[in-house]
């Protein structure tokens, strides 16, 4: 059975027709063409699909599409500012060399954003714990942690 749902996506309202078994990631990638959200495992084990739902980081590969009804969803596409400007967290990942193949990056950035939104001054332990569900095979995480630290400092200093 197909059902219409509506939710806020990156600040604008969208209406989509979904089936009960559809996952949020299917709606984002296949129906709405937002391919920035990646699928690395489809089982909630890698975090590549992390998006924000009402400000909380969730795995879009496990999140039922129907559940999005009436909520606010933010994906990596929603972080970019006008005129192709990267957000502070995104820019920090670029600056610190926290990106290699980049497949984990959108999910990593979304988890980092969720952390910094709720904890503007995280310790290294808190950063590592917040990113526990996000696997990266390329970087060994050192530069990712540095990027989140840079973003934290810059966001705090922002007027």
């Amino acid at each position, binding site marked *: 059975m197909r059902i219409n749902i509506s939710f806020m996506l990156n600040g604008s309202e969208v209406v989509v027709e979904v089936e009960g078994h559809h996952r949020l990631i299917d709606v984002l990638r296949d129906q709405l063409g937002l391919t920035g959200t990646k699928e690395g495992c489809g089982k909630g084990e890698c975090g590549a699909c992390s998006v924000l739902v009402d400000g909380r980081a969730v795995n879009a590969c496990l999140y039922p599409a129907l559940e999005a009804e009436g909520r606010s969803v933010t994906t990596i596409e929603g972080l970019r500012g006008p005129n192709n400007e990267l957000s502070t967290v995104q820019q920090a990942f670029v600056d610190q060399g926290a*990106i290699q*193949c*980049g497949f984990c990056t959108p999910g990593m950035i979304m988890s980092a954003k969720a952390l910094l939104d709720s904890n503007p001054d995280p310790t*290294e332990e808190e950063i590592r714990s917040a990113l526990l569900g996000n696997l990266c095979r*390329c970087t*060994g*995480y050192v530069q990712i942690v540095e990027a989140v630290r840079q973003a934290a400092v810059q966001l705090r200093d922002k007027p």
Partner: protein
Amino acid sequence: MTDFHYIGKETKRPAGPDKAAGKAHYIHDLVRPGMLFGKIKFSEHPHAHIKNIDISRAERLPGVKAVITAYNTPELRIGFLRDNFALKKDKVRQYRDEVAAVAATDPETAEEAIRLITVEYEPLPGIFSPHDALKDGAPLVHETDARGRARSDNVLPLRFHHESGDLEVGRSAASHSAEGEFSTPLVQQCCMGTAGCIAEFSMSNNLTIWAKTQIPFLAQRDFNRALSDMGLGGRNTRVIVPTLGGGFGSGLDTHTYEYIAILLAFQTGRPVKIVYTRDEEFAFLSPRQSTHTRIIQGCDSEGRLTFRHVEVLQDNGAYTSWGATYPSVMMLPATSLYRVPNVYFDSKLVYTNNTYCQAMRGYGNPELTWALESNMDELAGEAGIDPADFRMINCNEPGETTPMGLKVSTCGLKECLESVAEKLDWKKKHGKGKRRGVGMASLMHVGGSGRIYRSDASGLIIKLDDFGNANVYYGGIEMGQGLHTFLTQAVAEALGIRPENVIINPTDTGTCPWDVGTHASRGAFMAGNTAILAAEKLRRRIFEFAEELFPKEVAKNIKKLQKKDPDFKAPDFDVAAAAKRDRFELKDGFIFIKDAPAEGYMRVELGRLLRAIHFRNQGQMLTADVFYDPPNELPDFEKGYGNISATYAYGAQGAEVEVDTETGEVEIIRMAAAHDVGKVLNPQTLKGQIYGALAQGVGYALYEEIQSHEGRILNPDFRDYKIPGTLDMNFPIDLEFIETDDEYGPFGSKGVGEPGLVPTAPAIANAIYDAVGVRVHDLPITPEKILAALNKK
């Protein structure tokens, strides 16, 4: 060259912002008009005769456009021994054998169709260990070879062997010796972006394939051969490489799923996409090969190595891919890590009904170094010498030629060992026991490409445009390691333009010159050398044209200034007379005469000069193409001799660990790493390479292992196959780069893509031994194995 503008600086990754914005396009994100989705039906037995395949129900499912098996498609043999087939006929030899495939309008229908295919099997006895495969009367995995000749055993016809000096002399000269048997498991590359492709035919039957590959040109050759086997001889393949979600060796061969997509695309006349799910990737993509190594080494009373005897047994799995040729790399450390005069190396490779194997970062080197560097500590213990001192006594030196004939141009191993010992506070910490310990291990690896094909070359084209941009076409693969970052720096440095004016074009066999592939840590080495050669060609041509055109442009500059300021006086410098090709310089995108007054109007922007060259009668556009084959040799692998690489990378890593003797858990307190990289090209990407590889080394040491029972993979997901996460890597890594300024490396550098994971596992194992006095010989070093060893003690 020492005065670098961009080399050694932290130039940013060109695709970084796109990747951060979710705008980079991986195979998963690509769509073609009319595209179908392919899905494969894999075997339900590890070894069985195929009695019957019923595809009728799948064919009737609405949305299904093709159902193929080996019985309704041309036979496509694949692999360098041609012992594998895209689809299997008569017999399956492993759980991942492809018995049928479908193409459908959407993924769900394709999956449903696969479920509707039924296959009748007659199970056969299987072999699941290389030792069993060697037993008399073991069932044959392959009854015949690729040419149809009967086989009598499971041993592959591949010989990698080396003997030098006289082992008996070495044995009798030894005052101490140590023998050990070591093994390494199957390990998955675990690219975060799984494997996949899209295949599409034009009406002229030329194929375009978007492939997750590290070898676009060898893949083109393989696919062209498949086209010919499909009756499309003379037709051509174009391989386009999208953004790669990691490589780590997984893209060094062509894959069965690619041939299946090609068959489906041809049959349906529509683009067909196959992308593996994570479970499929774990179960059906070729992992790192498992190995068993027996090693004996001896040294004299001074601690000098007198001999080394190494025998390797490898489980090839059911078919042959590049895993089979690991011994070609294993023989490097076996013969040449440390100075050892008498060496024996032999390897044996056998078929089993397990999954077959492929390349992974390090390619046999981590496997062999695991045995070698663990055994070095065992021998040091026998000889009563501190393991750090023992390594120093036997350390390689620049200028030596090793028993394998490797010519060591530069070697920073000694400095690396010293650095690691200092960072670990070795003298104070080693040998104290009490559940805390330190350990170290060294590595050597190819650092100047590695000749394993007749050609070890890479081509590169630079096309200058009217705006002073260098458009680069290069066949090497950016898979996250930072190849395009360095290529940008190298072109900017060597040509004399700004990095933002270097545009790296997508990798495409239709536009890029031939390249053997991105393996053997050769990416930066080859990209740099080709960039330097191409830039030289362009500079020569630019300066030739400048003799005539540069003075005219400067005259225009002066005229403009005089118009603005009638009092302006040009200096007394005869530009026309000085405009000689060898007196020009190009830097940061401006051309000038080296000894001319350093005034703005005495410089001409490159784009302006290029436009002057272009827009005149019989004008010219400047393009340079080069093809570089490095100065190395294709070794005779049966004799184990030949200088396989233009230069060699060295390094050492050390670990401090704490072992919980109640649980067997190992906690890494910190790690130290020192790598001879020749020259640091970009500190940030270089650190990223070592940190990332070291993390893979930690996983290899402590937990990564594909578990299987009678050929069936038991842990095909990240819950049961653990790779390091943020908390597993929560310890400081003290990293140092040793610069040896190699004469063959571009700007003095050596390849470093693989070395970072080579010595990690033995360094950790040696630290565990130092902490609690037990040695685990079989990777991974799990808590259970440590407890078992402690209980035995």
